[in-house]
């Protein structure tokens, strides 16, 4: 079902990566993303959080149509990109762009900033007159807070924060409707991180660009997102509005995650109640049966070991995949 508001609709998405080898050359697969469904409206920011190996980056790539899902469907603006012609898929790339984690590595060291930022225009609007192209490049650089003389300079002449602004300019110049931000501020220092988060927030509000904001940093995700999705071993544990998720987390994993993040306040830190997790992350080659989180969950019962919990809806748009969420003691705040 697609409502007119949905820019992006993902249903039952799974991505497996085959792994060769093993004993007797057995065929195995890493289940990176498993049965993930969500929607993203125009202008909305959905935060995707989780620890390493939870599938958040793979999810971003699948949404961008950069890798082929094993199962599930993705609708973009009412149609399915995977079913379109290659030419049409290529043109869709101007509507959905991406910003990567490492600002310097995602730029070409031998191309000027102007050439890299203008490159999407060469591809999508080859007939654009040169002076109009220059004008658009200058305008977008100004919008991301870089001075006009950046056009003729090279990436190594800029700091990490400035390079990330270049990356944002390049993602913006084709007037996209959605930007996938894959750990877009994780490599930046705190003072610069706040600048870039503020810039992305402004752009999303002013230009109505939807953001799929993938990050391991729960505090940053809280700052920028309208809704937040929590992934664990490729599965959605909880998805809810920002204030609902951070103010009243229901899934034991979300609670553990939130309580593990140190808060920059010594008094709060010393009096905090923490939900500790047991052990390490299981291998995505051999995820646990039943609820994937049961091996580390302090509340797990027999049912959790055998039966996969569905995402069940609470009030509002809060969904949680846990057999026990009704029984678990409700704790309003992680702090």
């Amino acid at each position, binding site marked *: 079902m697609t409502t007119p508001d949905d820019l992006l609709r993902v249903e039952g998405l799974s991505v497996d990566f085959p792994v060769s080898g093993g004993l007797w050359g057995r065929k195995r697969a890493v289940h990176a993303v498993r049965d993930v469904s969500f929607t993203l409206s125009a202008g909305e920011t959905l935060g995707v959080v989780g*620890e390493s190996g939870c599938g958040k980056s793979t999810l971003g790539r699948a949404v961008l149509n950069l890798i082929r899902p094993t199962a599930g469907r993705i609708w973009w603006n009412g149609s399915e990109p995977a079913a379109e012609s290659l030419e049409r898929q290529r043109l869709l790339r101007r509507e959905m762009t991406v910003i990567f984690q490492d600002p310097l590595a995602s730029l070409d060291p031998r191309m000027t900033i102007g050439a890299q930022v203008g490159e999407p225009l060469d591809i999508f609007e080859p007939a654009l007159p040169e002076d109009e192209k220059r004008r658009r490049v200058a305008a977008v650089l100004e919008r991301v807070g870089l001075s006009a003389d950046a056009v003729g300079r090279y990436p190594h002449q800029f700091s990490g924060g400035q390079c990330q602004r270049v990356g944002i300019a390049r993602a913006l110049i084709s007037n996209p409707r959605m930007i996938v931000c894959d750990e877009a501020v994780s490599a930046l*220092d*705190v003072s610069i991180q706040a600048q870039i988060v503020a810039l992305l927030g402004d752009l999303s509000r002013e230009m109505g660009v939807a953001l799929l904001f993938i990050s391991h940093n*729960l505090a940053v995700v809280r700052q920028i997102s309208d809704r937040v999705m929590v992934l664990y071993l490729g599965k959605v544990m909880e998805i809810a509005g920002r204030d609902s998720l951070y103010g009243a987390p229901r899934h034991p994993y979300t609670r*553990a995650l939130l309580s593990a993040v*140190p808060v920059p306040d010594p*008094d*709060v830190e010393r009096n905090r109640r923490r939900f500790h997790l047991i052990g390490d992350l299981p291998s995505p080659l051999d995820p646990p049966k039943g609820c994937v989180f049961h091996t580390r969950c302090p509340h797990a019962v027999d049912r959790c070991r055998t039966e996969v919990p569905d995402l069940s809806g609470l009030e509002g748009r809060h969904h949680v995949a846990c057999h026990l969420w009704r029984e678990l003691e409700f704790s309003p705040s992680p702090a």
Partner: protein
Amino acid sequence: MEAEPRQDRIVLNVSNLTTRFLTPRGTVTAVDGVSFSLAAGETLGIVGESGCGKSQTLFSIMGLLPSNARVGGSIGFEGQELIGLPPGEMNRLRGIRLALVFQDPMTALNPYLTVERQLCEVLEYHKGLSRADARAEALEALRRVHMPEPERQLRRYPHELSGGMRQRVVIAMAMIGKPALLLADEPTTALDVTIQAEILDLLAEQSDSGTAIVLVTHDLGVVARLCDRVAVMYAGRVVEQGPTRAVFHAPRHPYTQGLLAALPRLDDLASAGRKPIEGQPPDLLALPPGCAFSPRCPLADGPCREMSPELLSRDGGCAVACHHADGRGGVS
């Protein structure tokens, strides 16, 4: 929490530490006149952003600097001066009295050796223990860091362990000689938050047992969690230093204030409107005259652009390097 470390239990006394690197583009002063002291069981956090000199301060103490480095000032460790100490004597201290934990556990572990060999090596080298005795101590060291199934882990290689387990091995290795001082450089930055929480607990236990810890981190949350005192660095200098509570609740340097205001917080519902520090990080080869923070500082005026402010003691055990920080109220 005491404002100043107790004088009789001082383990480390760093005074006017200055570390310069001679590079083809000029001399970079990575650490510029840093002073602090640390008592047994105390944890000092050094925070700041990339290139502020926090890691180089640690490496200077450890004597692990490249050959183009020039170190000045004084590093007193258990009454002994470390600067200028012959390499042989430094080696006798390292790994036993003085231990280091790095950000990436994989760089600290030898991929070709089992966990047992890496742990026992320290004991056989420094203490001359037999294999069997060393093994028994190694097992005990793994138990102290709450390693599950320690006997089994002894036989494994680093690549067979998860990131959190590797960092446990590194901490076990660092603590095996019962060091007086543990230097930790971003020990949890490479780990997931749920694992980070366990490792921070583990570090807190080491400090409870009397080891002094210097923890370098960019994460103010980690400092709030673990450290008794904190030093905030910017462009090679300490700009503010004091008890963690005082610095976090009433920061007086505009940079500390800016950092705390820029940081998104999980516990603050109003965190939507965080305030970035404008401008770019400093270039150590082209520092402005006067206060290095002045180009980004909302309070900067004439004197700030001409004269570098000294780190002066204020009330409450804090020291601040700012022309605008008065004795009590601080800048606002």
